[in-house]
């Protein structure tokens, strides 16, 4: 921490609530010129909320906010921009149909005195800036034609070279390859040495430790720890993030993996060296009947793409999916369904028909089994009623439009549609995301029951609790590749975080 200087950005006692839920509680935060400040914390700990306050995205909050010692308030992201604050958001926000140069100068294209864009100058300067960042692309290429990682680098480059004095990077490295991360770090150090204040948020604690001067840890909307990066370790940071001692954690998530006793069960699904562009790299695994395989990784680690490959939504570049010993090349999701693969995506909206009654939502995946040509509505309703009963979907009215149900009950409907004729493999993406505790437990129980019936289940999640509470065996993905497998051993949340 640079001593004896006044911070360029200082926040005191910041509190922010969303509809009665406090996302930040009395947080102090200071950023100095020429400092890289790392932020860590679990999902929902309040890091992103605080950064959005600084970037003017959330204008409503209580507490003191000062830039260069002068108290101020940003009413919008524009205000923040004018004051020299720029942020790279977690979600990619680029214009894929515009050229690289246009993206670099988005909203600030150089114009001549007639207001016309100076294309040649723009292309030249964009090329120079990107070259400085070690990116060698033709500035007039359509951005969408470039790989995702490169797009992300270009978005970062835009912010880094916007001339801002305060730069916030929210999870910038998730889609980057190791050499790209190196280039980013070199540029960040250079900017720091030129006097820019940088906030760096990441789930990758090694990255935080390597690049930061100072590290702050958030937990449940509070700042719980602040330290020199040189004076701490990965284990200490994880402990601060989770908030309990290591032993207590192993108690909570002690998990006797039952895989060895199931070694005699037949392998139902085998992924053999699956690769997909930059998102999935040479991933292989097996799932046996009655086994729950958890796949854990941070956002952008490639698990969602992997799930879509398993369900035939995306064709892999190489590798095969083998089901019951038969190699499959799914031509459509319909082919995957017929082969016995069931899939629940991370977004309920992408899975359900909100304007249709519950029973049609449940029967859609089994219609071809109960009717050849003509529909059998009474059969559909009885199937739906049985599922609504078994999964305790409330209200228990199958004629109700799905949109009238609560989120947790909608998630149960998304499961129910696959269960009237049980599949061979169930692929679940983020099965408990955004659920209250009760609904979460219901889903966990349903998954347990299904696996007891002999279903092979794959659970993919960015939430360690979800994976830990459901899985018999866990593999960890990082930047598209499998980096660790936990089988037949004691595993805990901090070990999982450490591996990812």
């Amino acid at each position: 921490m640079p001593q004896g200087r006044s911070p360029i950005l200082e926040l005191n006692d910041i509190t922010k609530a969303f509809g009665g839920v406090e996302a930040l509680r009395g947080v102090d935060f200071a950023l100095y010129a020429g400092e890289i400040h790392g932020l860590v914390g679990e999902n929902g700990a309040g890091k992103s909320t605080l950064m959005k306050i600084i970037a003017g995205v959330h204008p409503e909050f209580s507490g003191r906010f000062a830039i260069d010692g002068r108290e101020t308030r940003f009413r919008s992201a524009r205000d923040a921009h004018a004051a020299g604050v720029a942020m790279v958001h977690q979600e990619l926000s680029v214009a894929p149909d515009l050229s690289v140069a246009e993206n670099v100068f988005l909203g600030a294209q150089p114009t001549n005195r007639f207001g016309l864009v100076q294309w040649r100058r723009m292309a030249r300067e964009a090329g120079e800036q990107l070259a400085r960042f070690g990116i060698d692309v033709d500035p007039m290429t359509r951005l969408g034609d470039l790989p995702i990682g490169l797009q992300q680098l270009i978005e970062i480059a835009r912010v880094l070279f916007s001339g801002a004095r305060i730069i916030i990077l929210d999870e910038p490295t998730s889609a980057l390859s190791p050499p790209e991360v190196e280039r980013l770090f070199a540029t960040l150090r250079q900017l720091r040495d030129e006097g820019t204040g940088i906030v760096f948020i990441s789930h990758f604690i090694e990255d935080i430790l390597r690049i930061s001067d100072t590290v702050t840890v958030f937990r449940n909307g509070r700042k719980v720890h602040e330290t020199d990066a040189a004076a701490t370790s990965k284990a200490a940071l994880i402990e601060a993030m989770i908030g309990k001692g290591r032993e207590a954690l192993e108690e909570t998530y002690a998990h006797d993996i039952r895989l060895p006793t199931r070694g005699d069960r037949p392998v139902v699904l085998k992924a053999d060296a699956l690769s997909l562009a930059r998102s999935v790299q040479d991933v292989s695994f097996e799932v046996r009947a009655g086994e729950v395989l958890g796949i854990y990784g941070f956002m952008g680690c490639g698990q969602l793409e992997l799930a879509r490959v398993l369900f035939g939504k995306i064709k892999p570049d190489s590798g095969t999916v083998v089901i019951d010993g038969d190699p499959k090349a799914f031509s459509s999701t319909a082919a995957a369904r017929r082969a016995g693969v069931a899939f629940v995506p991370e977004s309920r909206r992408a899975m359900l028909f909100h304007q249709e009654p519950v029973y049609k939502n449940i029967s859609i995946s089994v219609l071809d089994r109960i009717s050849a040509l003509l529909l059998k509505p009474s059969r559909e309703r009885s199937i739906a009623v049985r599922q609504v009963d078994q999964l305790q979907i409330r209200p228990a009215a199958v004629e109700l439009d799905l949109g009238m149900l609560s989120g947790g009950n909608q998630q149960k409907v998304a499961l129910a549609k696959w269960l009237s004729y049980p599949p061979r493999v169930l692929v679940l993406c983020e099965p408990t995301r955004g659920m209250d505790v009760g609904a979460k437990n219901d889903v966990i129980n349903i998954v347990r029951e299904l696996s007891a019936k002999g279903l092979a289940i794959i659970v993919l999640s960015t939430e360690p609790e979800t994976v830990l509470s459901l899985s018999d065996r866990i593999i960890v993905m990082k930047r598209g590749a499998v980096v660790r497998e936990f089988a037949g051993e004691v595993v805990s949340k901090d070990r999982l975080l450490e591996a990812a």
Partner: protein
Amino acid sequence: MATSEGVTATVHRGGQRSAAAILRSQMRNIAPFLTLICLSGFFAIASPSFATLDNLGNILTQVSVTGIIAVGLTFVILCAEIDLSIAAIANVTGIAVAYFTLQESYVNIANVPLPGWAAILLSLALCALLGLVNALGLTVIGIPSFIMTLAMMQIAAGISALLVRGQIAYKVPDLVTTLGSGSIGGIPWIVIVAAVMLLAGHLVLTYTRFGRYVYMVGGNREAAEYSGLNVKLILGSVMVISAVCSGIAGMLGVAHFGSAQQNEFDTYLLDSIAAVVVGGTSLFGGRGGIGNTIVGLFVLGVLNNGLDHVNIDSFLKILIRGLILLAALVINVYAQRLRARAAE
């Protein structure tokens, strides 16, 4: 115990909300019907010759060709796609069936006379093939249906032009002549064909698995795919259905008009789209159906026919038609929003 009370309360609230909510969610079906009643009432008062049995027969005959095309188009629009090649495919199929029929000696067309059944089958094969090209362009190559069918419109028009080379043909197979211009017991066959096809379309959409898939793909294409439906197969099928319906309309239309020539179906493109949309089938897919299309056909038929019965500047009629179409589109879009809000 507490849970079951909570459930009853929820259901009860759902029941109370439903009176207003149902009205709002049914706006799409109610509005076109009201429009039809108002228009009919207006013309009945404005002209003594409008509300007669004879004139009802006229209206039915006038909307028959549009009706046959609209059956297939309803499938397409329910899937949130569009088919701009319907009129051109109708035209080329009508011309093809004449091309394969022996013409009078004064008709100067180098045609290929075949037996009637062969001419009909070949023409049906032609429209099905053109529909298949639409389907492949949309699903395999991934060309948006708007663009794909725009190209097909031109291709079909091109085939028409090559077949007739600016000439006019008159003869079509006897079966087509009967169905297109004959009548039985005073009822024109073309009205019967249109009614049968509309009924068949309704039955397929309402009672078959394929019909359900059409609604589901239109309602949420992503969810349909994640439910393991073969979305491309369904989209491809509706494009072929649309082309075949258009082809049948084209053959009967040629018999109905008494001649086969270039550009004779051009007005049917907008009329068919208008009939489907005015009837309340959502342009965003998933809502509506043949029932709506029938109401839409009547709105259009009553409007076109009624304007001829009242004393209005004939050039003004075009404008009036346009304004009524605009009103229907506004209702269509608003009904979608109300429905979406009711669902939340």
